[in-house]
């Protein structure tokens, strides 16, 4: 049982849901990234998703793209990111998953990436540009190393395909709420409720919803049907202010924001 399996097992038994914030590694620097993650977990986030910056992220909207660009402009390297994680994860009560492009995983070497990430305490991988058909070799390595390989299902994934993806997924299923790229939305399509409810009846795996979630009313709407919710751009947008404003203030605001979302979740 991986760390992620254990976490959702506990949450389900306690009747609780996971809040999973997304943070870009190295924006504005790795020290701050570590501090944000500590703060997010201290406020009650159950997992954290760490975005490994990539030069050509086609699934990401302007906010996360810009954070990747800022981080890469400072020449943040994968080895430094994993070093930082290696120091951070032992003290952390919540598992970390990395969101990472397959371009990076491939260049690093599939086995090497999984081994290095695992050594740094990473519990799972989300590889947004690796659909189920191409995931075989990485899936095999992840299973052997007991690192979860989280796959995505979208509103336009046909049902039979969704079942095939679910069979190949470990950790949890990432249900993409909208047909589109990452970024805050004012409203989310109500069909999500039906789709996620259906999906959870088909699979024992936890289902977490991401893309577009930013407001307490989104959280109130979605948490009853999901095992967890992922909040990305709304956090990254706040982190972006750390370059121009006092960091302590930014950290407090992120803490307040997460507390507000968690309150809406219970």
């Amino acid at each position, binding site marked *: 049982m991986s760390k992620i399996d254990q976490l959702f097992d506990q949450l389900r038994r306690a009747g609780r849901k996971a809040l999973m914030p997304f943070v870009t590694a190295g924006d504005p620097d790795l020290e701050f990234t570590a501090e944000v993650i500590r703060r997010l977990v201290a406020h009650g986030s159950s997992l954290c998703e760490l975005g490994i910056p*990539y*030069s*050509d*992220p*086609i*699934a*990401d*909207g302007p906010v996360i*793209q810009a954070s990747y*660009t800022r981080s*890469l402009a400072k020449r943040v*390297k*994968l080895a430094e990111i994993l070093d930082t994680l290696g120091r951070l994860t032992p003290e952390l009560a919540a598992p970390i998953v990395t969101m990472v*492009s*397959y*371009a*990076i*995983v*491939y*260049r*690093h070497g599939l086995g090497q990436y999984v081994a290095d990430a695992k050594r740094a305490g990473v519990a799972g991988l989300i590889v*947004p*540009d*690796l*659909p*189920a*058909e*191409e995931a075989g070799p990485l899936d095999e390595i992840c299973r052997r190393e007991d690192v979860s390989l989280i*796959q*995505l*299902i*979208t509103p*336009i*994934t*046909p049902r039979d*395909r969704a079942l095939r*993806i679910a069979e190949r997924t470990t950790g949890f299923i990432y249900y*993409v709420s*909208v*047909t*589109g*790229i990452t970024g805050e939305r004012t409203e989310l399509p109500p069909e999500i409720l039906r789709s996620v409810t259906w999906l959870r009846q088909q699979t024992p795996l936890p289902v977490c919803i991401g893309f577009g979630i930013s407001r307490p009313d989104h959280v109130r709407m979605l948490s009853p049907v999901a095992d967890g919710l992922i909040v990305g751009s709304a956090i990254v947008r706040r982190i972006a202010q750390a370059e121009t404003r006092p960091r302590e203030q930014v950290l407090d605001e992120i803490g307040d924001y997460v507390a507000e979302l968690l309150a809406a979740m219970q």
Partner: protein
Amino acid sequence: MPATTQVPDATGRFGPFGGRYVPETLTRALEQLAAEYQRAAGDESFQAELAELYRHYVGRPSPLYHAERLSRRCGGAQIYLKREDLNHTGAHKINNTLGQALLTRRMGKPRVIAETGAGQHGVATATACARFGLECVVYMGEEDIRRQKPNVFSMRLLGAEVRPVASGSRTLRDAINEAMRDWMSSVETTHYCLGSVVGPHPFPQIVRDFQSVIGRETRRQCLDQLGRLPDLIVACVGGGSNAGGMFYPFIKDDDVALVGVEAGGRGEKMGDHAAPLCFGQPGVLHGSFSYVMQDEDGQTCDVHSISAGLDYPGTGPEHSYWKDTGRVDYTNARDDEILAAFDALAKSEGILPALESSHAVAKAMQLAAARKPEEAIVVCLSGRGDKDAAEIARLRGEKFE
């Protein structure tokens, strides 16, 4: 193993290259496109309609022209130009966009998006969309908008919306990213008309097949005009669509040497060229596994080319396959050689080649000089150079009004 023409396989692989590395959101549209293309490929009425458009709308077959004065100037083999520059819209790109417009209509999608570098694919897409009454949005990097102004204006005249892309290097690669992001949100009503033999399966196959009209005609014209196949064929390679379409019908002709010319830019230093087949290594970019310019972390490197159409860090998976099987020889030509070749063709034949096509001309001139007068070299003259006049003036410090 020698290269085969029986590629890609059902998963979009050319040997180890190709595949489909895209977000789940796009997989359904790619499957739909692959299925529709399979049906269309076997549908005589589809092929007949495309052939009719090629003939009466594009002006095909494009001539195979014996450039006698250029050949004499080089003092070796005879140089023949496959005149894709004479096509409607001035480049080979229209061969592909008309095919994809027909596919768009078959799929019942009302909207088309495209990326463009030099603007040739953008103009060709805008043209095909105007012809078929489709809404058209073209993504173009700000740097390319600056250096290819005439094409930007043409696209707007044709009714397309040109959306400037300000991210990254503000060139072709960023335009592809932005088009993909648009497609992530619009995939159910929009067809992405990708302009080269790159991207996720089935694009490398579809674009190659539509562009193969170049190689099929060249083959027939050589047999008619020379009584035999050429000794050597040269084409420029960025994403690689004109080269792909030219080479594919000759893959099994072992006696025909094939040379792809990448953008050698200012030199061999990383960042000074756009030549992944010469200097890169296999990796993943824009949905496909192929040779690419990346750093040790897998981040795409900035590249440079004098020509916007070749200013791209990746290349088509089938080119990677042809490189590794040894069927095609990939080399590069530098910016200064390109400008010299541009002048040579302009002054000896009265033809202004596109800066992209000038890469092939430059290499062909060098290769011709080392061969015998009875040998024949075909150059794919993929586009005309009018669009580059202002940029060439700027590079030479001349005024252009």
